[in-house]
């Protein structure tokens, strides 16, 4: 693997999407800062989470654009004329997309956990739910990346983004119905039940599987432009 070329391709994608990335990162981090400054106001926290989740979903669109636009705008022949293999191209697309998403995602998750732990008025028992839902958002983005890279089709990738956005509500609604998660949300202490651990493990396994599937599909492709 030529990591030097992978780094250059990632830098290139970040540069090309710099306006969207800067807007999302700035918007997300400012929102999280305002939530922290609200000293635990529940309304501020809820509004803040809504804004940040919206920005994260919006970042999925940036990821999608970075992947699908290469073929749609016919820049793929230019990229593939460079001294790279398709394996390196795929790695750069996945890593570049994930890294930029993870910056805001990690900041969001850390801020939410810190707010719950440090601000007055929040039940610490919310933390497992928040972590599971955050990983679900990450999983949705990975789905967009997988479908985008594997199909290079705007239609399919938009479909994947819609499935991911809809599943956020569905999965949230579904997991609070597990007694040891739903009841624990109002608990004063963090309770990691076996159900919560299993759900988190399933999400992480799904992410790993999607990434492996993406590389598998790419390795079987015979026509790249």
């Amino acid at each position: 693997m030529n990591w030097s070329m992978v780094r250059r391709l990632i830098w290139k994608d970040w540069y090309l999407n710099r306006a969207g990335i800067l807007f999302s990162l700035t918007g997300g981090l400012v929102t999280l800062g305002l939530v922290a400054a609200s000293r635990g106001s529940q309304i501020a926290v809820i509004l803040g989470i809504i804004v940040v989740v919206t920005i994260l979903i919006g970042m999925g669109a940036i990821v999608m654009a970075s992947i699908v636009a290469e073929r749609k705008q016919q820049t793929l022949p230019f990229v593939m004329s460079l001294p790279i293999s398709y394996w390196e191209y795929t790695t750069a697309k996945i890593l570049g997309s994930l890294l930029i998403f993870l910056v805001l995602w990690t900041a969001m998750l850390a801020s939410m956990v810190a707010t719950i732990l440090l601000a007055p008025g929040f039940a610490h028992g919310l933390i497992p739910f928040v972590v599971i839902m955050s990983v679900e958002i990450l999983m949705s983005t990975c789905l967009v990346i997988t479908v985008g890279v594997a199909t290079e089709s705007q239609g399919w990738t938009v479909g994947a983004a819609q499935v991911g956005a809809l599943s956020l509500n569905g999965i949230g609604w579904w997991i609070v119905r597990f007694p040891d998660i739903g009841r624990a949300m109002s608990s004063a202490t963090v309770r990691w039940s076996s159900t919560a651990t299993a759900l988190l493990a399933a999400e992480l396994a799904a992410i790993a599987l999607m990434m492996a599937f993406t590389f598998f599909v790419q390795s079987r492709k015979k026509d790249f432009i």
Partner: protein
Amino acid sequence: MIEFAVEMSGVTKRYKHFTLDEIGLRLPTGSIMGFVGANGAGKSTTLRILMGLVHQDAGSVQVLGYSMPDQQAPAKVEIGFVSEDMRLYGSPTLGWHMNFVRSIYPRWDRAYADTLMRRFDLKAEQKVKGMSHGQRVKAALLLALARRPKLLVLDEPTTGLDPIARREVLGELMAVLADEERTVLFSSHNTLDVEQISDQITFIDRGRILKSSDKESFLDRWRRIRLVLPPESKLPGLPGVVNVRGSNRLPVVTTDQFEPAMVAAYQQIGVGVQSVDAMTLEEIFVASVESRREGSAL
């Protein structure tokens, strides 16, 4: 120095409605090959296989000594590729593209890039999305040429260019060819462009190589002979006749193995020879394709 910059043997690629069939192609190092075919003949597929961008179903491809597609990454360090459907990124400037490519290619020639920019009347600070088609093609050529590649692969680079831009692009290609170690493979359906710059010519049609030879041999061997047959006589079959057009009385014979002895042979049997005309590359190409499509040489 390796003898052949490109060696393809038995290369086959099957699609639902098209098959590239047992392509064999050898391009001597330092030569300029014009790869001529109609739209959909298989030119782009062949060049993409050569670049490792499409994987062949069968056959072997060696480019500059690298086996494709497995060794495409190191091979592409030494190849410049420009295709008609290649686009640069719209928002960044040409200067950004030059810096990006320069960061990848150790042999990037900054002075030559500046020279090309002046010659092509391009500006580094110009955004690609504001460029005309001709300017975009020139920008892509600049990015490929300033890498100082050992092999230049150009897939229909002059398609869609106005006559002035075409002349500029072809002029620069001819200048590039002064470097005897550089090899160029240049596909086009425009035989005039190919005739101007190539020293080797290969015809492809419907996924098969029809003919491949040096340009002079093509132009020397192909002739159109206008004959006058005596009444009630039939045209005798001679070797090398590709097709016969015209009327029964005044046939026009096209041959790909012309020798002066052919004229003498016709005259000996009482057939009048009105004229022996040299053929342009376009006429040779059309005759080759028609002959193949009609099934066989006569």
